[in-house]
């Protein structure tokens, strides 16, 4: 026993190092999965208030930019309203509302890590649920990962595991958007077949297949593509229209048809 104590005393530095480093690696290995990121949600709950407080300060400096954004938005909505009033008299035109939107403020954002998250200032109290889509006027931002009472955590499109269904604007070919890390202005698209007629500058839009995002939201433009010999798919690089480092206000899209669609598709799988 005495020897043991002497041993521990002599090598306490290495033993303590192994213990703490082992614990760190354990935390690293168990808590960085896409799902089940519990500590993340926990820290969000408490750090969220601090982020919100500091965001109030930075908001002040962004007032001018925000004003312009809101004015543009107003103009767009006015023009939509006018169109709507003309169409509403026509009984032939019927458009079901598939999505309900509400605006939210980004209170914390990152773009330079390998897995990026955003924090929004709305939570369960405002009706935000897990799995809702987050968009802006110029692009897709991410998907709600976890929600606390007043805040919600968004998995950005700048996340290794994020995979969003997209398509070419001109043709109906579907693809998957996957981030390759490092540059937050660019991303890659897989699964668009070789025979698609593709040009530099083509617009990429969301496909709406997953019922998380509405169909036809513009995302970015093609800046380079190449055919890989022996592979049937293009390797495409696109540039986002939205500057993901500067987003300030976003819309959370709640799909009104998602449950119905998933239920229907589940039935088909059982057969």
């Amino acid at each position: 026993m005495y020897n043991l104590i002497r041993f521990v005393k002599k090598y306490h530095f290495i033993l303590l190092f192994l213990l703490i480093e082992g614990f760190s690696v354990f935390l690293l290995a168990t808590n960085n999965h896409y799902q089940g990121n519990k500590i993340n949600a926990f820290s969000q709950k408490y750090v969220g208030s601090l982020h919100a407080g500091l965001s109030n300060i930075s908001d002040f400096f962004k007032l001018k930019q925000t004003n312009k954004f809101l004015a543009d938005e107003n103009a767009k909505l006015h023009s939509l309203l006018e169109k709507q009033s003309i169409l509403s008299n026509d009984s032939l035109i019927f458009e079901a509302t598939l999505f309900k939107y509400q605006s939210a403020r980004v209170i914390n954002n990152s773009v330079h890590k390998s897995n990026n998250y955003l924090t929004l200032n709305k939570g369960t109290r405002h009706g935000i649920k897990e799995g809702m889509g987050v968009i802006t006027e110029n692009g897709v931002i991410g998907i709600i990962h976890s929600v606390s009472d007043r805040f919600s955590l968004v998995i950005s499109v700048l996340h290794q595991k994020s995979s969003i269904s997209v398509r070419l604007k001109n043709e109906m070919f579907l693809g998957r958007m996957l981030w390759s890390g490092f540059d937050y202005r660019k991303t890659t698209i897989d699964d668009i077949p070789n025979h698609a007629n593709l040009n530099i500058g083509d617009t990429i839009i969301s496909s709406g297949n997953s019922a998380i995002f509405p169909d036809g939201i513009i995302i970015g433009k093609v800046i380079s593509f190449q055919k890989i010999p022996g592979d049937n798919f293009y390797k495409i690089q696109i540039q986002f229209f939205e500057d993901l480092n500067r987003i300030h206000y976003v819309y959370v899209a709640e799909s009104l048809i998602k449950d119905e669609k998933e239920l229907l598709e589940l039935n088909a799988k059982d057969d």
Partner: protein
Amino acid sequence: MIKQLYKYFWLTPIFIFIQVYILNQVLFNGYINPYFYIMLIICLPQITPRWFLLTFAFLLGVFLDVFEGSIGFHSTACVMIAFLKPAFERIIIPKNTISAEQDLFLQKLGFKMFSVFAFMLIFIHHTILFLLAHFKLATFIDIIGKIALSSFITFVIILVCQFFFFNSDRRK
């Protein structure tokens, strides 16, 4: 607890604040991402108890992880450099250069010695951190580039910080 270490307790929140709300927000490029908070670990005096060194590094890492919304990345890297620090001190800093109670600051160690000492620890920290973070998706060259550029910028920021804010002894 030694009096020398008191200041590290109130410096910690300031450094975390600067790191999370200023340096993490300023983006030079996808490749440059300085982590200057590790200056707190680098500058701890030689007399610091070993257990305190490791625990302090771990807690510092955990705090940064919580604020960044990641788990385990910073704590792993910080504990590793805390473990290597005493060995590096023995190799790089000759005996009787400075007394054991003094912080390892630039003007006490001299430019050459401090540069070698600080840069090696920074480089190891960044290597572990970025290897863990970008392990799966990035190419080898991308990671090497990011490690080299970020280490250099972190080093420059720490040097500037030492020149301007921690040279009160020289004025006396």
